[in-house]
């Protein structure tokens, strides 16, 4: 197993629900309430030393009980290794802890996840939409139940496939 994953498994007896390594990428899945603690460990532990945030992303799995997956990717510039941290949230309670206190760059990246997928980040300093307009009320575009062509006033467009032949 990847040495980083081994270390995480030894450190956290509860809360870590999955460890995976595929194509050289190490990924750790944690339960939502342990997220901040694990992230803090990744940031501050001298053996981990993940000082660089690569991206924050989210995946929608509509059939699962815990529908959304939030993904963080970290890199350590001093140790030159990377890890992916994942957690799941149910649709009824789409809230995870914000990691802006650990990595400043998480601010905009988490706002984008909120904007696109509708996941709220607890303790985020400025959780507003970032790419869509502030007054956009048609939902969250990257969810799987959001149609590709869009919603709202676009429904009135005459698309070519709706023209009777």
């Amino acid at each position, binding site marked *: 197993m990847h040495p980083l994953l081994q270390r995480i498994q030894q450190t956290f007896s509860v809360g870590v629900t999955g460890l995976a390594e595929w194509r050289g990428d190490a990924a750790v899945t944690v339960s939502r309430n342990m997220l901040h603690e694990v992230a803090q460990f990744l940031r501050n532990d001298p053996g981990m030393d993940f000082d660089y945030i690569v*991206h924050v992303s989210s995946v929608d799995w509509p059939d699962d009980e815990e529908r959304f997956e939030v993904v963080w990717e970290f890199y350590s510039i001093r140790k030159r290794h990377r890890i992916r941290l994942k957690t799941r949230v149910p649709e009824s309670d789409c809230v995870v802890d914000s990691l802006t206190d650990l*990595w*400043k760059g998480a601010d*905009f990246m988490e706002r984008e996840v909120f904007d696109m997928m509708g996941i709220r980040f607890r303790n985020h300093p400025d959780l507003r939409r970032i790419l869509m307009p502030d007054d956009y009320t048609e939902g969250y575009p*990257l969810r799987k139940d959001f149609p590709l062509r869009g919603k709202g006033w676009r429904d009135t467009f005459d698309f070519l496939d709706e023209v009777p032949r």
Partner: protein
Amino acid sequence: MAFEDQRTTVYKIDPEHPESESLPTLRTEELLLNLGPQHPSTHGVLKVILELEGERLVKSTPVMGYLHRGVEKLAEDGTYHQFIPHTDRLDYVCAMYNNFAYCRAVEKLLNLQVPERAEYLRTIVAEVQRIIGHQFWLGAQALDIGAMTVFFYCFRDREILLDWFNELCGARLTTSWYRIGGVERDLTPSLIDKLKQFLDYFPPKIDEYQVFLEKNRIWLGRTKGVAVISAEDAVSFGLSGPVLRGSGVDYDLRKYEPYSAYPKCEFSVPVGKNGDTYDRYWIRVMELYESVKIIRQCLDQMQEGPVMADVPSVTLPPKERVFTNLEAMIQQFKLFSQGFDAPPGEVYCGTEAHKGELGFYIVSTGGGKPYRLKIRAPSFIHMGAFDHMSRGYMISDACTIFGSYDIVMGECDR
């Protein structure tokens, strides 16, 4: 001549004792100013709401999304091959590098090996694209600051390379030349000759660009000590590319996680020390020399060979065969309409584009389409540090600061 951080001189009237300044009591209040969305030096449609105290920036709030086209959503609807032209439109100034970053991510997902000659060709064209990107940046940044001449010189030389691209793939900007598993076509002898001529022509021209700027008082005054960011903050914000290296962190994926033909080339990564706009400028100019070096080495080392991996279930057949052979045509048609069967899993693959780390995170559940595709766009992440970097500077520095990120809104908003 020493250049201090220009933020150190913020004068404030003490509200408790306004008379101590021996000035008449003035009412002071903060002013909100909209910069953009239509402004010649915002490099696309971007609005920044500036909170001002006099001419100093107290807080700035970027408002983005004017160019949001939902590229990540579109990716979920098309096959892997079909997404390549979409990546051209991310950072439309440097399409080749986007193609490259995307193809690398898909190849990592498929665990696909690219032939050696294709790796060299990819490196050569990526470095040509880096030169174009830095020329574009230098011209535009100098123009923003008021030095117009450099712009013309940069664009004159950029034009040669764009014509070279035109001969290579038939397009100047939206190139789509990279393919999953290789590249679309080999360099012709005429293209190699032209590139060699350019490599001889170009280094003296870089010196020429510098002549305009290095001793120009206005340029130095407006770049030295402006938009300083410490190494620690730059890392914490996730900055990458010249913006991060300007602060003294030598993070460059070409060295940290070598890919393509980079490990076979000798080149150095210029690193600044002050973290100001001038250092970021210096790094980009030095990278022009390094790119020339890399291209020369690749042209010397490159051996004959195929330019596309031979995995018929994934890679496209050569164009000549598509037009002459029925099976090849069916193969091409099926690959584009249904796609190939990617294994389920998820990968992240970052590539050092000239702006910074351009990464693709792909989640696959099998089948021909990505289940989720996330683009880590350096421009977007750099905008996250804008408020932090602009506090305390003048209004006129705002344009310098987002200029120094080398921002392109197509990539920022996706």
